[in-house]
C-alpha cells in the first residue's frame, strides 16, 4: 500500500508546553482518513505542520513522496487545505475568493471560472456567490473554504474540523462532495472530535491524545471489540474511570 502522507518523528513545543510529542504515521492513499482526539490533543498543530503552515521543531513530512519543507513546489500544488481558526479574504465575495485562489494557484482564468461556478452550484452557494464572505454564516464559510481547497483538484485534502458549527444540511452537502472526491482515488484527511461522524465517514482512523498517536489503522481494527468508536476512543485515552453515578445524585428536577 502506498502512503499519501508519511510523518516521521514530528515534534512541536510552544514554550514549556509540548503540543506534538513525536508522531510517526503513514496515511494510506485513496482513503477517507479521520484524525480524532479530544480538544487540545494537538490535531490542529499536526495538520498545520503537515500542510506547511507551521514549522516543526523536529521531524519530516512527506506528501506523495515529496518533503513538505524541502520541496514545496511539488507539495503545494498537490495538496488542498481548509484550516481552522484562520480567516479567509473575507472582503471578497464568494465568487471573487474562488477566482482569486484559483488564479494564485496558476490555473487559467477561464478554467477557474468554470470550476468555481460548478463548485458554487454543488455546494449550494450559487445564491450567495456575490455576497461578501464576511457576511457568510459558519456553514457557508466552511463550504467556500472547501471549494477553495478543491479548486486545483489536489491529490490530498486536509480539513481541520470541517463540520464544526455546520448545520445538518450543509454537513450533508460537504459529505457528499468529499465522498465523491475520495471515490475517484483522492485522499481526505480530516480532524474531528465527533466520533459518530468519523465512524460513519472514515475507513481509516488515527487516534490522538496529549500530542501522541494512541492508535491508528483501518476503522474496524481501531474499534476492535468495542461496540462503538466512541467507547474504543474513551478506553484508549483512559477516560473511563469517571463515574457520574454517585455524584450529583440530587439532580433530576423532582424534589428541590
Amino acid at each position, binding site marked *: 500500500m502506498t502512503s499519501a502522507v508519511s510523518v516521521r518523528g514530528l515534534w512541536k513545543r510552544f514554550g514549556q508546553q509540548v503540543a506534538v510529542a513525536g508522531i510517526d504515521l503513514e496515511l494510506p492513499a485513496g482513503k477517507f482518513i479521520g484524525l480524532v482526539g479530544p480538544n487540545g490533543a494537538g490535531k490542529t498543530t499536526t495538520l498545520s505542520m503537515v500542510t506547511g503552515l507551521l514549522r516543526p521543531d523536529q521531524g519530516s513530512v512527506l506528501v506523495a513522496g515529496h518533503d513538505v519543507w524541502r520541496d514545496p*513546489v511539488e507539495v503545494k500544488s498537490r495538496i488542498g487545505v481548509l484550516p481552522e481558526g484562520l480567516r479567509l479574504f473575507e472582503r471578497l465575495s464568494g465568487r471573487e475568493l474562488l477566482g482569486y485562489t484559483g488564479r494564485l494557484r496558476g490555473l487559467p482564468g477561464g478554467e477557474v471560472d468554470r470550476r468555481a461556478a460548478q463548485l458554487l452550484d454543488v455546494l449550494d452557494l450559487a445564491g450567495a456567490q456575490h455576497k461578501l464572505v464576511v457576511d457568510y454564516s459558519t456553514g457557508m464559510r466552511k463550504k467556500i473554504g472547501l471549494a477553495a481547497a478543491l479548486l486545483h483538484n489536489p491529490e490530498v485534502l486536509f480539513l481541520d474540523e470541517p463540520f464544526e458549527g455546520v448545520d445538518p444540511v450543509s454537513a450533508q452537502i460537504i459529505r457528499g462532495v468529499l465522498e465523491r472526491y475520495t471515490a475517484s482515488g483522492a485522499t481526505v484527511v480530516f480532524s474531528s472530535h465527533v466520533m459518530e461522524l468519523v465512524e460513519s465517514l472514515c475507513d481509516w482512523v488515527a487516534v490522538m491524545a496529549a500530542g501522541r498517536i494512541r492508535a491508528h489503522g483501518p476503522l474496524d481494527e481501531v474499534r476492535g471489540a468495542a461496540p462503538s468508536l466512541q467507547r474504543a476512543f474513551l478506553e484508549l485515552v483512559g477516560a473511563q474511570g469517571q463515574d457520574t453515578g454517585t455524584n450529583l445524585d440530587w439532580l433530576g428536577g423532582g424534589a428541590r
Partner: protein
Amino acid sequence: MTADLTPVVVRLKLSLLRNGLRQSGGRRAAYIASAVAVLLFSVLQLLGLIALRGDEHAGSVVVPLVAVLAAGWAVMPLFFPGGDETLDPTRLVMLPLRPRPLVRALLVASLIGIGPVFTLCLLVGSVVSVAHGGTAYVFSVLGVLLALLVCVALARAVAVANIRLLTSRKGRDLAVLSGLVIAVGAQVVNFGAQRLGSGGLGQLDGPADVLKWVPPASAIGAVDSASEGSYGVAVLQLALSAAALAGLLALWSRHLTRLMTSPDGSTLPSAQGAARERGSTGLARLLPAGRTGTVMERSLRYVWRDPKTKAAWVTSLAIGLIVPVFNALQGTGSIYFACFAAGMLGVQMYNQFGQDTSAFWMVATTISSPRDAYVELRARALALLVITLPYATVVTVVTTALIGDWPKLPEVLGVSFALLGAMLATGAWTSARFPYSIPQEGYKNVAPGQSGLAAAAVVGGMVSAALLCAPVIALTIWANLSADGDEWSWVLLPVGAVYGAAITWAGLRLAAPRTAGRLPEILTAVSKG
C-alpha cells in the same frame, strides 16, 4: 397612562444622573470638576459675547458659533454613545410605549444636564450681543428656544440612527473610519483658526452669510435680522429652524419606531442588497494576467472594501495632501514638502502581510519559491503605485502651482519618485522581516505585545528610506548650490525616477527569498489580531 410619561422619564434621567455619581468617588469628582469647568467656561463666553454687543461683526461671530455648536451636538453621540443611558432607547423596547409621547418625554429629558445648560448660556449670550429693540427681544426668546430644541433633537436623532447603524456590519465598518473625521477636521479647524488670527473677524462675514440660513444658526440669524428691521427675513429664518425641528422630530420618531419594532440588524440574514452583482469591473480587464493582476485586483479591492485598509489609506492621502498644500497656502511652506505625499503613501507598503490578517495562509499555500514571492510582492507594489504615482504627482504639481516656483518642479518630482521607490523597497523588506498583526476590531493598529516591533519596523524603515535617497538628495543640493546647477536641475526628474525604480526592484529582490523562506513565521506573526 401615557400622559404621565414625561415626568417619569425626567425622573428616570435625574435618578440615573444621581446614581451615576453615587457609584464612585472618582466619578463624582470628575463630574463635579467638569461641571464647574463647563459652568466657568459658559460664564466667560457669556461675558465675552455680551462684550461683543454693538460690534459690527457681532452677527458674523455668533451665527457661525451656533452652527459649530450644533455640529458638536450632532457629533457627540457618535463618540460617546454610552454617555447618556436614556439616549439608548433599546432599553425601553420591552415597555408598551407609543412613539409620540415617548419622543416628547425623551426630548424634555434631554434638556437636563451640563450640555444643555452650556448651550443655553451660549445661545443667550449670542442673542444678547445682537438683539436691539423690542421686536428683536421677542425673536430672541423664540430663537433661543428653537435653537436649543434643534440641537437636542439633532443629537437624539443622530444617536438613534447610530444605534441602528452599529447593529449592522456596514455600520461597524463605518465606525472604524469615524476617527478620521476628527483627525482631518482638526487640521481644517487649525487652518481656519490661523486664517482668522491673521485676518480679523471680518473674515467671518462670508461664511456667516451662508450659515444664517442653516438651522439652528438661522434662529439666531433671525434675531440679527429683526434688529436690522428686516422682519420678513427674520420670520423666514425662524420658520426654517422650526421646520428643521419638525423634520428632526419626525426622523427621530420614525427611526425610534423601527428600532423598537424590528429585530436587531445583526441577526437578520443580510439578504437585502446581496443581489448586487459584483461582476468583474473594468479594472480587472486593464490588469495584467496571472498572479500579478490577481494580486493587484485583490489589493485594490481591499483599499475600498476593508475598513482598516481604507482608514489607513484615507489618512495617508489626507495628510499627504494637507501638509504640503496648507503650508503652501499659508506661505510658510517649502516646495520640498510635496515629497510628504510620496512618503505618507509609501508607508502603505509596510506590513503588507499584516494587512492580510491570518488570511495570509491563502497566500502562503500558493508561494512555493522565491519567484512566487517576488511576483506577489511586485504585484502589491504595483497596486500601490496605481494610486500613489498619480497622487504624488498631482500633489507636487499643485504645491508647485501654489508656491509658483515652476522651475523647481522637475527636481521635486525626482526626489518624490526616489523617496517613493525607497519606501517601497524598505516596505517590502520589513514586510518580510518584521510582520505584525493588525487587529480587525477597534481603533488599535497593532496587536498587544507587538507595538515595539511595529514601531521599530516603520521608524527604522523610514530612516533607511531617507538614507537610501541620499544620492538623489545630494544631487538636488548640488544643483541648488552650484553656479550653473539650475540649468541641470531638470536631469533630477529622470534620475530620481530611474533611481526609485531600480531601488524598488532591488528591495523586492531582497525581500522575496526572505518571504518565501519565512512563510510559517510570517503567518504566526500576523495571526494574533
